């Protein structure tokens, strides 16, 4: 735990003088930019190529089926609706005909309001796979506001991707 005082004072002397005269630091700067010409580029040509997303990437929230049985995972517990800070989830559920539990009538996420915080995934009670999850979809531009209110079908199948023409 020490405190360092930065004293930016070049020591006056012949060497410093020579450096100033010969523009030493300007040459060093030029060398840095020259060197960087041969470093790999960092930009990607976006629609043609995309960056690799990490497994935890939080794109738009979506619902999923049970991958084995193909049934709906969501048990309509409304927890994600409650915890959502932006009120973007809207769930309508009804009692199951056999009286045990509830089932979904409609499940809507308004992507215009969603802030991609991922809080809806935390309380989801289905194990081991959560019914709602943060997908890797992020291309969701649309021309109409209605296009951002995703119904159950969109949530399960994903947003219809827009193909960019070459």
């Amino acid at each position: 735990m020490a405190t360092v005082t930065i004293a930016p004072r070049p020591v006056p002397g012949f060497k410093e003088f020579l450096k100033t005269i010969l523009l030493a630091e300007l040459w060093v700067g030029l060398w840095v930019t020259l060197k960087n010409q041969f470093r790999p580029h960092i930009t990607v040509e976006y629609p043609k190529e995309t960056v690799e997303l990490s497994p935890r990437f939080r794109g738009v929230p979506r619902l999923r089926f049970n991958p084995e049985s193909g049934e709906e995972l969501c048990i309509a517990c409304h927890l994600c609706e409650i915890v959502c800070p932006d009120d973007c989830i809207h769930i309508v559920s009804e009692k199951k005909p056999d009286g045990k539990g509830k089932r979904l009538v409609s499940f809507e996420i308004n992507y215009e309001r969603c802030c991609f915080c991922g809080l809806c995934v935390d309380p989801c009670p289905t194990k081991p796979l959560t019914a709602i999850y943060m997908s890797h979809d992020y291309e969701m531009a649309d021309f109409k506001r209605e296009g951002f209110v995703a119904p159950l079908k969109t949530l399960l199948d994903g947003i219809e991707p827009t193909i960019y023409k070459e």
Partner: protein
Amino acid sequence: MFHTEEMDINMGPQHPSTHGVLRLRLTLDGETISDMRPIIGYLHRGVEKLCEHRTFPMIEPLTDRLDYVAAISENLGYCGAVEKAMGIVVPPRAQYIRVILAELQRIASHLLWLGTHALDLGAMSVFFYTFREREMILDLFEAFCGARLTYNSMRIGGLLEDVPAGWLDRVRHFISIFPGREKEYEDLLTVNRIFVGRTRGVGILTPQDAVALGVSGPTLRATGVDYDVRRAQPYCSYEQFQFDVPLGRNGDTYDRYLVRMEEMRQCCRIIQQALDRLPDGEVRAKVAKYIKPPAGEVYHVVESPRGEQGFYIVTSGGEMPYRMRFRSPSFVNLQALPSMCKGQLVAYVVAVIGSIDIVLGDVDR
């Protein structure tokens, strides 16, 4: 026969070098600034009021959007405040990971500052180099919490998940290459006579003024006042780390630059220590399902990359805070801008605004 008059010039809110929607009203006497008034509020979103209608876990995404350049520091401060109110002890592993995240965030934030500051002064390439390195940090954050800017990375009581496999090695790799890259920025700027000429002796802030105005962070330390929250009031196990607090001498733009450059090096030091001593164990303390801090009030400060970031929460025993107040360093540091600029040439303003490193989301809230 002749008379001179002062001229009012409006700078901003849409101006490339005010870094957002800051508006400055400059009163000029020729080229000299005789008065300056920062006009803020263009990015006001009423976050403090919004917080009163959110439960405690729901507030964390809001804190992301205050200082969006250093969201993890905000997350850390907010979670720390709620944990303080509830008396939760965060597991050591979570604390260390939080330190790693916060210090990476400090580097990322300083890199963004450095790039834009250099860009304001005309050095274009530095911007791309700093963003290249910042991108590496953002990739690390994306791997950890899934987002690149508004992280929502922590949870009250610790972290949501432990770090993914191989993440710590990536951090190690980053801090092993970063000093070399920082050397390159220094080659381009620190010694460059044009850069030194444009920053040294410009926008001087005296220690007395700085303390009186409540300035904090690197802007304060550049004046020579030794105050760093990480050491003055250690939080999140910062007392267990060895690091230097760099201080400036003249309080000018060049010193603020040097202090931040040195801070990035110290960040690497802290991260290295945290990686070496990272304990095993849980990353989240046992927390009740519904977070209801007892009635009362709590104030918690963290050292964000911009300075002292405070969170003041008045609780009424319910699920939502009764009142929430953020002490944002950008807002307070911005107050020092007129005293830095008065009596100087108008051409200095760009360099000075860049050097105090404000984020308008943090100023206006």
